[in-house]
């Protein structure tokens, strides 16, 4: 085993925290959608994949400056989220949950195939080389640090939105009592659309942060989609705080597990941990006592 102040250990812990930030952002988006609309967007990671292509095209192909390209990418995915709700979810609101799940699953395959046809299966990246930060003997990529800080900033913005605005308060209220929203004068249909756009915008932000670090290809969603579902389930579906905590728990497991051999082992450990937890706490990490 290692000594307490092992630099590799410390590096892994910090890497885990950096990874956790982006995972928490994605979990927040999924939880927002689930909490308000009561559906799970199985295709969430694929929306992010489209967003990654979006930034790639805006920035690398069309040559837009980053300060335009990134907001444009966020807006693009927000519109996609809106369309997803309007076209797929809204007609199925009263359908059985399994049908909603199958429908968003269908969108997942649609987006993958669409990306394959439209963009090809080549791996692409922005071609930005951000420096590596060296602190003592530890090394962190600047891109990851930037992604972590931006994810944190995104979550703070959402937090302020949820606590300071009427729409945000309604978003928190609706999961607590759906039927009486009409008595408050809330148009639930419109609230769903706003939430879908917001969930899309969060996916767009995550896309910008991920494409800074990783290549994009039509199946890139598979490399982080499953783990984000484990996170929101373990955090308790619709539970924002639970999702936030679970994101960092999983990120640490992946990062520390990766210390022993490679990162793939970290994922194996994370999934094993999930299965164990499902036996121990099936309602999620921070399940509410009810």
């Amino acid at each position, binding site marked *: 085993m290692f000594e307490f102040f092992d630099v590799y250990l410390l590096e892994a812990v910090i890497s885990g925290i950096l990874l956790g930030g982006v995972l928490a952002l994605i979990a927040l988006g999924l939880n927002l959608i689930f909490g308000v609309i009561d559906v799970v967007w199985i295709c969430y990671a694929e929306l992010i994949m489209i967003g990654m292509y979006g930034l790639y095209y805006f920035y690398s192909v069309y040559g837009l400056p980053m300060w335009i390209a990134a907001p444009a990418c966020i807006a693009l995915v927000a519109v996609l989220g809106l369309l997803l709700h309007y076209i797929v979810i809204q007609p199925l609101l009263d359908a059985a949950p399994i049908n909603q799940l199958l429908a968003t699953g269908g969108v997942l395959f649609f987006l993958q195939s669409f990306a394959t046809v439209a963009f090809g299966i080549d791996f692409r990246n922005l071609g930005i080389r951000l420096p590596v930060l060296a602190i003592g003997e530890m090394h962190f990529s600047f891109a990851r640090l930037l992604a972590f800080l931006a994810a944190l900033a995104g979550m703070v913005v959402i937090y302020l939105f949820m606590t300071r605005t009427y729409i945000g*308060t*309604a978003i*928190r209220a609706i999961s607590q009592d759906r039927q009486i929203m009409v*008595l408050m004068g*809330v*148009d639930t249909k419109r609230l769903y659309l706003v939430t879908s756009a917001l969930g899309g915008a969060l996916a767009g932000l995550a896309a910008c942060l991920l494409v800074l670090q990783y290549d994009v290809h039509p199946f890139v969603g598979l490399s982080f989609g499953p783990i984000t579902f484990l996170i929101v389930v373990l955090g308790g579906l619709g539970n924002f705080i639970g999702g936030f905590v679970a994101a960092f728990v999983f990120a640490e497991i992946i990062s520390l597990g990766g210390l022993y051999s490679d990162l793939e082992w970290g994922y194996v450990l994370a999934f094993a941990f999930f299965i164990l937890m499902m036996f121990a706490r099936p309602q999620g990490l921070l399940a509410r006592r009810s």
Partner: protein
Amino acid sequence: MLKLDAVAAGYGTFQALFGTTLDVNAGEAVGVIGPNGAGKTTLMRVISGMIRPWSGAISMEGVDVLAEAPHRIIELGIAHVPENRRLFPRLTVEGNLRMGAFTPSARAKFAHRLEFVFDLFPRMKERRNQLAGTLSGGEQQMCAIGRALMSDPKLLLLDEPSAGLAPVVVQQVFELVQRIRSGGLTVLIVEQNVQQVLRVVDRAYLLEAGNIRASGASAELLASDTIKQAYLGV
């Protein structure tokens, strides 16, 4: 002010109201009494838009209520304190009150209305940052009524405000209803607590199995044999 004409309503294929006709004049307090399952709550829901009637007409100050989208009915000046209070348990007291002021016109006077509600319920001011789910039963009822008052309504619908409360608190709730009335608000109140409610309302309707069986001034009803035998236990 409020007029219901031959309103029929139900759930799925189950009919709960069979052509209810009722009216409430401005400034009045009107009671609806009746046994469990009579359709009292359904009546309130139909007025506030929680469910849509199958047939019939509802108007508020001459405006066709059923022509409005359900979430816009509150803008006609109708606020509904639902059965079992239905607070948002994981929002603070202030969060709940904020939800009561969700409509654009109510938002504009939020500070003013908040002051009004806090004057009416100083306890709510003390507890403004407490989660609504942790309030006592009586406090929850205050919060629920406060939430409805945030929209500055003309007509307040109260569905069994005294249910599940300790006798002392029940007394306070009825005193409160009286105070709200004297402030000029029109009130339509559903109660199982027949004796007490007939003391605070001007008129009442007796609803049984989805039909209005009797109606009249409170004093008349208190004296009537049907009511005495069935609801007052004398």
